[in-house]
């Protein structure tokens, strides 16, 4: 038995937002793989939960007429991993989704939950950072959009006000069109594990040069981060192994991993460089 005081199940976005307006301290629970584990560990007690798992409108992925992709926050990792729109246009999000936990967890855990709990290790976050995803946050009073980079405010903290709920994750066509993306999760085990570090890279190559590049990490800072210094440096660089090495070194300027029992700062810094280089080599077909 979980230490739940009260449970309400919202069946529509409107119902959920009204309930949140009246019960701003209610904890939103979607797939449950985070909230229930916090209850299990005693990090949350006598909880007042609002379940949203049955709101069909918040599930699934579609591409609109402009080519922008919209991901419902209740989309599970299994759905993301196997979705044709994702596989065709942003396959590195599929890879990231497929690296989370194990199959049973992926069948229930949602991308929205993974973002809203603010975990620095969220495996989908670096990819969404590379894609400049825009989050729609809705409350009974209205809605606003926030770029994912601004969404994270600290470890376990996100820019979600009381009464607000994430209702859509959008990726504009210009953020994926023509790019190739790669995701690299580094964890001790190959399944059921938390990232020691994760890294997503997307590149646009024109005339053998990087015309644009985005690099993002999880667990490399208190929040998922983009590496602007490296990205700027990369722009216009010729695609060579040497330049990839330079970019790999440059990522270190934008990240600040910490020492923890899960991995030392020195190891994470080292890995960050290795992972950026490996991702870039894979994307460009250059031997590492």
């Amino acid at each position, binding site marked *: *038995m*979980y*230490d739940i005081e009260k449970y309400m199940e919202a069946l529509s976005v409107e119902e959920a937002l009204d309930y949140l307006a009246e019960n701003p301290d209610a904890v939103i629970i979607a797939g449950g793989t985070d909230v229930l584990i916090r209850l299990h560990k*005693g990090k949350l*007690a006598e909880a007042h939960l609002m379940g949203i798992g049955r709101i069909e409108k918040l599930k699934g992925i579609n591409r609109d007429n402009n080519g922008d992709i919209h991901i419902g926050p209740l989309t599970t990792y299994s759905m993301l991993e196997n979705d044709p729109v994702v596989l065709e246009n942003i396959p590195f999000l599929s890879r990231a989704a497929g690296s989370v936990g*194990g199959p049973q967890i992926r069948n229930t855990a949602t991308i929205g939950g993974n973002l809203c709990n603010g975990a620095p290790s969220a495996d989908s976050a670096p990819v969404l950072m590379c894609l400049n995803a825009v989050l729609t946050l809705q409350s009974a009073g209205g809605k606003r959009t926030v770029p994912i980079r601004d969404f994270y405010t600290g470890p376990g903290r996100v820019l979600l006000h009381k009464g607000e709920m994430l209702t859509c994750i959008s990726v504009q066509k210009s953020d994926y069109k023509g790019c190739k993306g790669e995701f690299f999760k*580094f964890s*001790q*085990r*190959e*399944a*059921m*594990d*938390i990232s*020691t570090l994760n890294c997503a890279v997307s590149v646009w190559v024109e005339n053998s040069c990087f015309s644009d590049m985005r690099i993002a990490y999880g667990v490399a800072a208190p929040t998922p981060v983009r590496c602007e210094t490296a990205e700027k440096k990369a722009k216009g660089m010729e695609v060579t192994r040497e330049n990839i090495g330079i970019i790999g070194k440059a990522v270190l300027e934008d990240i600040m991993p910490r020492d923890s*029992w*899960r*991995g*030392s700062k*020195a*190891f994470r810094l*080292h*890995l960050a460089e*290795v992972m950026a280089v*490996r991702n870039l080599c894979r994307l460009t077909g250059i031997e*590492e």
Partner: protein
Amino acid sequence: MEFKTVGKGEKRKDAVAKVTGKAKYTADLDMRGMLYAGIFRSTIAHGRVVSIDTSEAEAMDGVLKVVTPEDVRGYIFPTSGHPFSLDPAQRDIADRPLLTDRVRLCGDEIAAVIAEDEITAAKAVKKIKVGYEEYPFYLDPEDAMKEGAVEIHEGVKNNIVGHNRIALGYSDIDAAFGKSDHVFEDVFETPPVQHCQMENQVTYAYIDGNDKVVIVTSTQIPHIVRRIIANLYKLPYGKVRVIKPVIGGGFGNKQDLVLEPLAVFLTMQAGGRPVMLNLTREECIACTRTRHGMRHYIKTGVRKDGRIIARQLRSYGTSGAYASHGHAIVGKQGSNFTRTYSAELASSFEGFTVYTNMSTAGAMRAYGIPQVTFAVESHHDNIAEALSMDPAAFREMNLIKEGSPDPLGHVSLKSYGLKECIRKGKEYIGWDRKRQLYSMQSGYIRRGVGLACFSYATGVWPHLLEISGARIVVDQDGSVQLQVGAAEIGQGSDTILCQIAAETIGVPYEMVDIEPFTDTDSSPFDTGAYASRQSYVSGQAVKKAALEVREKILERGGKKLNMDSSELDIVDGNIVVKKDLSVLVPISDITLASYYEKETAAPIVSDVSNRINANPLSFGVTVAEVEVDLKTGKIKVIDICNIHDSGKILNRVTAEGQVHGGMSMSLGYALTEKMLYDPETGKHLNNNLLDYKIPTILDTPELKADFVETYEETAPYGNKALGEPPTVSPAPAVRNAVLHATGVAVSSLPMNPQNMFDAFKKAGLI
């Protein structure tokens, strides 16, 4: 020798119940009126409780009672699952209170709540308030041994639980080293790790209508539980009944009394109502038992040609907060150290088992031998490398010789297949070619091959008693009911014992049935599942009981058929003529009469006990090939094979299963597993299955198992230890393969990416 069922891959007796979900484990058994207990555990690593406030917890609806150390004063007991010794000096250390106000580890049991349901128990535990006085805590045995360290158990000087010494040959080991051409020294560390059997520890106890204390528990040692409970509560043995349902794995974690004594106390507090203690995974990892973490100082003197002149090992093992198996595990290391290899002049072992403020260490699969083998086998590769010798050749030169007497005079060395295991292993992995091929590599992906050998004793004789009981009842139709005190915990002993009974009597395997529960009220006396003893020791008892039954059937058959029983045999459930195997009658003709023939009815039964005064060594080798990514520190095992001399293999399918499982456990030991403690607070950092990293299916390579079948004359059917041995040698084999691949001589486990990053950095490889 031709056998009918022994040696065949018979299907497990419990398999259907397990695939249909009908097998009943402890928590699956329900009783009316069940109460649930929760334990308040200390939040500090070392100190003393100065205040306990249970009032809020006691006031909660659904809480029956809160028990504190004050209520249980004087109940002190030993926990380890060893056979009793008539010599008081040999008995286990009794240092465990039911609840304690002297805190010895983070998670120590201070108070217990009895409640109507699990969540009330859990919530009430949170409402208990405890104040502490804190002492310095120790997470390293050598720190705990220092002068001035606080005694974790009062009166235990320097916190030393046990001190073992073995010396063979020269009494002056330094003189022996003086005669060597080279002397090599290394220090190795092996971490504390946890069993992580899938079923956590769980027990419930109640008092039945006849004032009998009944304990239903997930244990490997039902009869030992009974003895310790009876002694603790000064109850007649007849008033204590222990029931072992189906068990979801033990690996030594359940060769100890962790929950049973408290569960009994709690049911006594609850008027005999059943009280269940069902640990969470977090509690099970942190607060039950672990493998001893150890540091090994090892020194070897060799001649120029590689022959070992002198060997010395000094080991420090952390016992954690309580003695549990005491010095027995480090002691077993000592005798093992002198067995696999010989030294021309001298061998010396000194071991310390030391209290620390870590989780209590106890039995875990292979009982200290994975630790010592990691040290010895890693050290041997370091020596071979320094001497530019092939590591396999170095070993072959120094192995004990076939037929040589055991140096300690304890065990028979009659069956000895180790050299053949090495040959097979080398052939399997392509040893000579790959040792050559991988000797000159550049680039950041490197490959290497390594091997490691071991020996392992079968059972605990002569240190302790080896005895087992078996009872056979032959039904009216010739069906055989086998009753044993051996504990099936997943390893497959019930299946093997049924095969032995069927083979010996001469009936098909399908005709033999065995009850999956052990019940000390009706199961014959056997000390339980540990020391890889069941198929050897219990098997011998079953064979004895089966021979007796067989004789009785033949005797009765002879009378009925007017033939001398010596002319008869039993084959496939029929009485046959021995010389031409012609079938006379099915045994059911005889057994039916044994029940109902008015003048002579006497059902055919046997009830035996069998003591064994022998202890053959089983042997084996692991060969492994690894691929190392120098940049990420990841080690991928790409090929691995264990080759075992466990005597005759009684069931190929279940034997392979044991080998695979042991290999997997050792791969976790090698690569990912370690119990972590916060150096600032002594708290557990990773006591859950996300952070404590046992291998997943994606981390596990294809596992190969092979056997060199010798025939051990002292065994029921030529068999020797197999349950634990597979988990001994994979870790050092992988370590040695990494040495081959990278030139980096790893000295501590696990070889996880972080540690390999540090090692490669130090070696200048990255």
